[in-house]
């Protein structure tokens, strides 16, 4: 194939698009913030933001919604990144809301759906007007219809029928006071793009993305980590297995996959050969119903 010498590689094209999105937000909004979980997508977002504004620092802070059931390796990584780059980190704590009686623990112990209230409250309290999320359209079918700039009302709700058509590279970020815009710079990336970019840019990740021995037990066909959050229960038998995580979320609903992939190259090879999507393999919360994600997004979820 004779490619034009001016054709960008797919990673360069996706990087350029994401950088453009970060700079649009910096140019048009007063108080943007990056949702930062310490997961690979948010780490890639931060990396892109740093490249977009170098040699100046990133002109916005980070917001982490801490479920209280996070993997300790991921929190360590988060704190190290914040310290290394001198960033501002806001934390919205689900545990806080439970302790104050505002939120109640669900019978199944899953805290993912509980993140919506602390997230929207933090956005209101801090008056964030643009909130970067690492969501990708390839992850889930409700996300496939998401805009790059996605308007949320004062209750952070998403109305798929009120979405603004998005043409060319013209992103419309107009919003009323109290409303905000969720911005998804990785909209057009796939899981494999993210991993290839991590490898190319030599981006450091939390250790749990690579194969390691861990005590896990089986629930709903997924390997969950044993821990204080509420597992294993009766009849669930913990065992040591060689696993890694494809996604990083709340420990109560993020499953590990059996894996021997210890390097980035091995991870990329494993994903390329996988016959399951990353959410299908690792997220219990998306198995709730056909429209689980759409319903959570309407209420203000990431």
């Amino acid at each position, binding site marked *: 194939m004779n490619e034009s010498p001016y054709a960008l*590689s797919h990673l360069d094209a996706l990087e350029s698009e994401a950088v453009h999105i970060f700079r649009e937000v*910096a*140019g048009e909004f007063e108080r943007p913030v990056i949702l930062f979980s310490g997961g690979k997508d948010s780490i890639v977002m931060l990396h892109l933001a740093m490249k977009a504004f170098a040699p100046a620092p990133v002109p916005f802070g980070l917001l982490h919604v801490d479920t209280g059931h996070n993997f300790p390796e991921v929190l360590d990584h988060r704190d190290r990144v914040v310290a290394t780059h001198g960033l501002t980190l806001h934390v919205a704590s689900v545990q806080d809301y439970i302790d104050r009686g505002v939120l109640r623990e669900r019978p199944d112990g899953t805290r993912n759906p509980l993140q919506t209230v602390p997230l929207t409250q933090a956005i209101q309290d801090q008056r964030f007007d643009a909130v970067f999320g690492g969501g990708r359209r390839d992850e*889930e079918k409700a996300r496939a219809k998401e805009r790059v700039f996605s308007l949320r009302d004062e209750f952070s709700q998403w109305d*798929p029928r009120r979405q603004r058509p998005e043409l*060319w590279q013209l992103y419309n970020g107009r919003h009323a006071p109290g409303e905000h815009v969720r911005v998804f710079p990785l909209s057009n990336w796939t899981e494999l793009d993210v991993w290839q970019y991590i490898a190319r840019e030599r981006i450091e990740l939390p250790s749990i993305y690579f194969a390691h021995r861990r005590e896990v037990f089986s629930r709903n066909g997924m390997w969950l980590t044993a821990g204080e959050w509420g597992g294993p229960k009766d009849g669930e038998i913990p065992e040591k297995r060689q696993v890694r995580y494809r996604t990083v979320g709340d420990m109560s609903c993020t499953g590990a996959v059996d894996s021997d992939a210890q390097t980035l190259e091995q991870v990329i090879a494993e994903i390329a050969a996988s016959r399951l999507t990353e959410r299908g393999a690792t997220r219990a919360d998306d198995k709730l119903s056909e429209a689980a994600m759409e319903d959570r997004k309407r209420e203000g979820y990431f």
Partner: protein
Amino acid sequence: MISTTQHPAATTLLRFATAGSVDDGKSTLVGRLLHDSKSVLADQLQALEHASRSRGQDTPDLALLTDGLRAEREQGITIDVAYRYFATARRRFILADTPGHVQYTRNMVTGASTAELTVILVDARNGVVEQTRRHAAIAALLRVPLVVLAVNKMDLVGYREETFAAIADELTAYATQLGVPEVTAIPISALKGDNVVEPSPHMDWYGGPTVLEHLESVPVGNAPAQSPARFPVQYVIRPQSPEHPDHRGYAGQIAAGSFRVGQEVTVLPSGRTTTITGIDLLGESVDAAWTPQSVSLRLADQLDVSRGDLIAPSAAAPSVTQDIEATVCHVADRPLTPGARVLIKHATRTVKALVKDIPSRLGLDDLSPHPAPGSLAANDIGQVVIRTAEALPIDCYADSRCTGSFLLIDPADGTTLTAGMAGHAFAEQATEAPAEDDEGWDF
């Protein structure tokens, strides 16, 4: 939502669009492209089979893969633009999959706005119909550089070459007349798999590529020399740190053409000239950069340059104007009327504007002009005349899709009203003398 590109070695990226309805076999074609390139994964197929069964269907309905919204699944239609992602060993693809009926013209326009290629589907039994002509017109209007005509259901016309050739000739003539530079016609059967991914054993008379082979090999990334360079300034990078006390980088994505160090450039709208002293390509200092790279430029002189300005080569700078004549697609549910006070968003600048006139609405099926329509409703294509509060360095859309396009926005609630393309709708009309306008009509 189709996930997980399967081929780490993929190099370039092709953004393409499809328009069509279930009747044309569009879902079958897209489903086959995804399925045969192994982009539909096991858990998605399983979910699909489950959802299809619960609707009483025997075979998996591939449309359910992307009809992601509850309303779409309930109504069994695609309302929105669905973006799908897949890859082969040679290329990564972003497919904007849009519904084909006239009430979804705005979705087709949206999908085509970022596409480098569009696939138009025709049912071989019916030939070129109204909808085919509309799809070709939208591709021409949006200046999608490459058009593929997939003549589908060849199995139902006995794989006859004459049937294919007649349809290909008719649509190619029509599209060429509208200014489409290149039409590639391919005879296929999406259902049987002929010429979609694998060459057909039934059409020896056809020696061209399959649809996927064509998508994989068609050249992308136009030579930037073809169009004058344009750089809308997004943001000014000023670290003001001890290491970089005087650094001033003008950040943006090159909208057209290429820039090089040492080049004399003009900053618009001020009209001041200076020289590029450095180009930073995301951490790497380079001598030249081209569209669509995101870079930051350093300039020789301390000029007042800020977001909303446009940097262009002094030898080929656009003129600025407050009067814009454009072809638009109205995308909002509330109509657009003359006298409307709006915001115009052009490149990185948003200014106030007035809709002075709507001289005509265009019937896309036969390209018939309807003079003085009074207003434009959702999905209407029409001509508008706009007066802006400040002069804009706007190009003719035919010359630059990025700096020739704009949005009209409702200042009250921020609704995106209208998508605009400066200049005349189609190439054949663009050769006519532009309308005289004493107030600075520039095209």
